[in-house]
């Protein structure tokens, strides 16, 4: 009798263990490579912040149901220390040692391109925000045997963003100036991203009837006064501080002191930061966010997102809104996995992402990848009233239908 009892108890324990194993959640390993230290930290932190929030929400909601299994997202976050060699080492580790199914990051063009040379052959999906990837995402690169077949650009094409930004800036500033603006100076950092972005933005401004001069400053410049004095001599109607919110926040006060122009545009500076730093100008100032501002959210769901994002401890920075470029794609990727029904078929997941759409936070219109693995969504542009730090007027500008003359779209 005692033996029978013992046997029953053991059988029950075995059954319980078997049931537990059957119900146990499996892990879906996803990598994040971003600068958590070094000069790109402010951009890198947005990737980590977005990934943590998305993973937490997916897991809290029960995980991802793929086939007859449920997967919980397991993040493997690696700091690239703003160093391409560490980025490569981290990518090798995540792809080869850990076996992640997808990687989010990085924050800069060079790193993302080098990383794609590792993720591509390993058939690991890569979601990078860099719009400069547009320069390499072509028919050949994204073909089934192309080196960027598994890479997706989660930021819109640059000619689209430049077009919507130029239109938004001019429509907000024109009523504020004595005469319609005719002459713009684009002031930009002379690095990979700056060169790429400004090449499109100059064309977009020209398409809006502006005479445009381009002035580049060396990366890591801190004293902008010589170049700004030169710009003042050009007598521009608008100075566009284009790309790199951190540099812009250094250069803009110097421009105000020198009285360089009757109006300004600050790319990538969020109204929230403008307000927090109590910046003030006696001339109209516009600013844009990539893609929507956390300091002046146009949609309730965006506000909710940023409340949660900052609630997890993310820093409020000029580039915090960039986190949205990485957040929605977790859910879109999860949706594609559920549809495909297995996590080990990257080709099917790529095909599913290309034929599906996703309505998330970043855009009120569902996101769709084009044939070059790029998305389309609008840009928010805001204007702060002169002599105030918190009186904003914002507009969401839709991208143009086609690239402007002289812009090949790539």
């Amino acid at each position: 009798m005692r033996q029978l009892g013992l046997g029953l108890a053991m059988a029950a324990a075995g059954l319980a263990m078997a049931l537990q194993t059957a119900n146990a959640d499996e892990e879906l390993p996803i990598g994040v490579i971003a600068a958590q230290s070094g000069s790109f930290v402010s951009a890198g932190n947005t990737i980590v912040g977005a990934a943590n929030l998305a993973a937490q929400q997916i897991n809290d909601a029960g995980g991802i149901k793929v086939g007859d299994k449920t997967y919980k997202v397991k993040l493997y976050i690696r700091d690239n220390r703003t160093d391409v060699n560490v980025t490569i080492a981290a990518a090798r580790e995540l792809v080869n040692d850990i076996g992640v199914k997808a990687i989010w990051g990085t924050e800069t063009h060079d790193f993302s391109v080098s990383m794609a040379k590792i993720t591509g052959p390993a058939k690991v999906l890569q979601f990078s925000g860099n719009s400069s990837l547009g320069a390499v995402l072509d028919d050949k690169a994204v073909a089934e045997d192309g080196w960027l077949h598994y890479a997706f650009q989660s930021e819109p094409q640059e000619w689209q963003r430049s077009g919507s930004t130029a239109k938004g800036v001019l429509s907000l500033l024109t009523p504020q100036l004595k005469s319609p603006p005719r002459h713009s100076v684009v002031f930009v950092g002379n690095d990979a991203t700056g060169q790429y972005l400004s090449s499109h933005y100059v064309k977009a401004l020209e398409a809006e009837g502006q005479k445009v001069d381009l002035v580049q400053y060396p990366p890591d410049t801190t004293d902008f006064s010589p170049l700004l004095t030169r710009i003042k001599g050009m007598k521009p109607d608008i100075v566009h501080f284009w790309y790199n919110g951190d540099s812009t926040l250094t250069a803009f006060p110097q421009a105000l002191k020198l009285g360089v122009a009757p109006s300004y545009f600050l790319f990538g500076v969020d109204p929230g930061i403008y307000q927090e730093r109590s910046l003030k100008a006696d001339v109209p100032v516009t600013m844009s966010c990539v893609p929507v501002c956390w300091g002046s959210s146009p949609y309730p769901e965006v506000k909710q997102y940023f409340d949660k994002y900052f609630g997890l401890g993310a820093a409020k920075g000029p580039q915090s809104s960039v986190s949205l470029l990485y957040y929605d794609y977790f859910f879109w990727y999860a949706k594609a996995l559920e549809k495909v029904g297995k996590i080990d078929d990257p080709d099917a997941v790529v095909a599913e992402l290309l034929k599906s759409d996703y309505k998330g936070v970043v855009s009120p219109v569902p996101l769709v990848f084009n044939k070059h693995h790029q998305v389309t969504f609008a840009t928010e542009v805001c204007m702060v009233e002169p002599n105030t730090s918190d009186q904003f007027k914002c507009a969401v500008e839709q991208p143009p239908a086609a690239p402007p003359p002289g812009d090949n779209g790539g």
Partner: protein
Amino acid sequence: MPMTDNSAGKTGAAPEGVRARDRLALLTADNAAVPLPAGVQAITAILLAVLLIALPWLGLGYRFLSIAITTLYTAIGLYGLGLQFGQAGIMSVGHAALMGVGAYASAILSVQLGFGFWTSLPFAMALSAIVGGVIGLPTLRVGGQHYIIITFCFCALFVVVLTNGGTFTGSATGLDVGSVTPLPGINFDKLSNNYYLVLAALFLALSATYLIGNSRYGRTLRAIRENEQLARSVGINVDLHKLGVLMVSGLFAGLAGVLQLYYLRHISPTLFGAFPSLYLALMVMLGGARYLYGPLIGAVIVNFLPEVLNLDPVDSRIAYGVCLLLVILLLPGGVGAGIKNVYCAVRGGLEKQGGGTNGRA
């Protein structure tokens, strides 16, 4: 293992009346207090070779192996810098730009003419050597800190030219290349094969450095380093030898640059700017430019220190600064000299102990 160690006795403090040629001989002699025995040198070389060859089999993971590759190609570049600084006494803080010349030459040949790794390698190395010689021309007129400033200017100018070079240099975005052309049965897309490729190049660099250091040419370079006027007075063509060593250094840098290019498969100007150059100078000083394994030690320290101690870039720079100060104050010959001093002290202690015991017995 000292390649040449003159740290113990420098500056011609020779007895009065000694002829110039003899003074020169004194200066360029291996002044190490206790020269390492040939057996120790051989055992060190074998152990190091075995360790490096076995590394991919130790199961340390792809991350470790990736950083090891970075360390090795950096060390190859450092061996060039070690030759020009350690042997000839010509310091440069623009050496990354010289690596960049090789890398960009190879990338441009690949993009414009379809050259692969093996076909572009000799051209890239040759161009780096020529550029190394051209930058070296000012050394015929100026030296010391003046030449250092010139190399720094070259580095800055090189980055500006690349950044504004249009589609030819890929501007700030840079250039992309494919994989290393496979050899029969060896696909270099496999990380361990890539590692062995870089390791083979390192062995070549090590061997060349050893041979140069122990040749008549090496002794001539050391003579120039110790007293240029004296070397000139005994008939050494100082100008030719200076340019020669800078060209040899350029060859090493070109090789390192091409290996870096095909490891990353994407290059941009920022890789060859002021900071990478300063790091190279730091590494060679930390490791010890005059020691055969000094550059390798320096590359290991700088590449692995942040990894081992999980330092962010700011902490790393502080750590490097502290290390450099400590090395300057305590180990003027670098960590390589320190290791050798420890060996000599241990050996001396053991011999003394052995002798005393025997005596008492």
